[in-house]
């Protein structure tokens, strides 16, 4: 099967299947390779699962399990299939369970597994959306279901360009953090997409197990393809009935960002230490704010204004701010 080269998060990804969500690579040398294997049922059980991801709405059954097998990482999605990640994180294999659609495999690769693989070579990967405003990037940090994608779509509707839906990849170059575009797609619940004016005909299903829709450029949302300097990070919080922002100290930002960073093995002291240093540099360099607002569509305009108030787009480092407007 021919190898295709794609671009994602500042990385060239080789794949033995087409990944229509991604743009073709502009460089020829792949840094990460993906291979889809024939479907099958897992034949082996690792001695020990060392980590699990649970979804808030599931009871008992894990969403994903992690184990070390022969130097590689095994990431098992019990309902969908296995992924194997090489120890240098440059090779990803997937064996889906029989009957799992290709779209689901691509979603698991792009939105779940690849963010764990990209954290190498000095890159930092945060569970965050990212948009570009006047050639400057901001990150929207929040837990699953906190409204990152909806806010990003709202900002895009007001003139911003989208850089990433859920995976902010940043790289430090010449003393500045640059956000690398992830892929041109935003995942929204159908009611959010409708509320934001995206026609159903211009959205595709993300995966067979969820009602979420993926909106791409055909849905009218502008996506940015070039790396963009990171000028601010906003951590979403639903506290209170008002729209408010508060600039965090570098210490507060450091602790808050660690919680949102992708890390494959929290028990790996070397990786933890490396992440500690990287997050510390970002927290010191990029203004970080808590953004509180009631998660309702009608306040999104004021949320956008609050974000813009925090950014002095004529200066490279932003400025401190604390604002509050009635909800």
């Amino acid at each position, binding site marked *: 099967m021919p190898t295709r080269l794609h671009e994602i998060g500042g990385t060239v990804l080789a794949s033995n299947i087409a990944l229509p969500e991604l743009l073709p690579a502009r460089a020829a040398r792949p840094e990460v390779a993906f291979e889809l294997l024939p479907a099958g049922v897992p034949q082996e059980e690792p001695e020990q699962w060392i980590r699990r991801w649970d979804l808030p709405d599931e009871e008992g059954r894990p969403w994903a399990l992690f184990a070390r097998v022969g130097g590689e990482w095994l990431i098992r999605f019990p309902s969908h299939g296995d992924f194997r990640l090489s120890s240098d994180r440059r090779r990803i294999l997937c064996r889906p369970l029989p009957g799992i659609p290709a779209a689901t495999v691509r979603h698991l690769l792009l939105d779940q597994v690849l963010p764990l693989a990209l954290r190498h070579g000095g890159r930092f990967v945060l569970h965050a959306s990212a948009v570009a405003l006047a050639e400057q990037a901001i990150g929207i940090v929040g837990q699953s279901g906190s409204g990152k994608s909806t806010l990003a779509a709202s900002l895009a509707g007001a003139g911003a360009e989208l850089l990433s839906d859920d995976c902010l990849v940043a790289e430090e170059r010449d003393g500045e953090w640059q956000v690398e575009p992830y892929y041109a797609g935003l995942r929204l619940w159908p009611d959010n997409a409708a509320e934001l004016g995206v026609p159903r005909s211009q959205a595709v299903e993300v995966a067979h197990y969820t009602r979420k829709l993926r909106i791409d450029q055909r849905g009218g949302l502008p996506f940015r393809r070039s790396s963009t300097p990171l000028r601010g990070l906003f951590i979403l919080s639903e506290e209170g009935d008002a729209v408010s922002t508060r600039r965090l100290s570098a*210490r507060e930002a450091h*602790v808050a960002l660690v919680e949102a960073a992708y890390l494959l093995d929290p028990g790996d002291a070397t990786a*933890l230490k490396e992440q500690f240093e990287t997050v510390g540099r970002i927290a010191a360099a990029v203004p970080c704010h808590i953004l509180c607002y009631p998660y309702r569509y009608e306040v999104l305009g004021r949320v956008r204004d609050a974000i813009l108030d925090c950014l002095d787009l004529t200066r490279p480092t932003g400025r401190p701010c604390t604002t509050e407007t009635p909800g």
Partner: protein
Amino acid sequence: VHDRNARLKIAPHVVTRKVGEETVILNLESGTYFGLDPIGTRYLDLLEQHATLASVLPVMLREFEVTEEQLESDLARLTEEMLAGGLVERD
């Protein structure tokens, strides 16, 4: 209640990073993060040099406008938290 003369040291499995006048601490064994405000940061600095709360107290009393009783109470509580979090240990 913390013994003010107990000798303490920063645990070997801990890394720290100063950010301005504040400090972030990571316990590599537990993967847990802690933050210290400027007073806690100064306390940790002085503890590295003087090892006991009793010897740090007079130095900090000269630097901060606070009563000895209040400062000792605050630092004893912080010490207990740091011991519980594995950030410092008895020498």
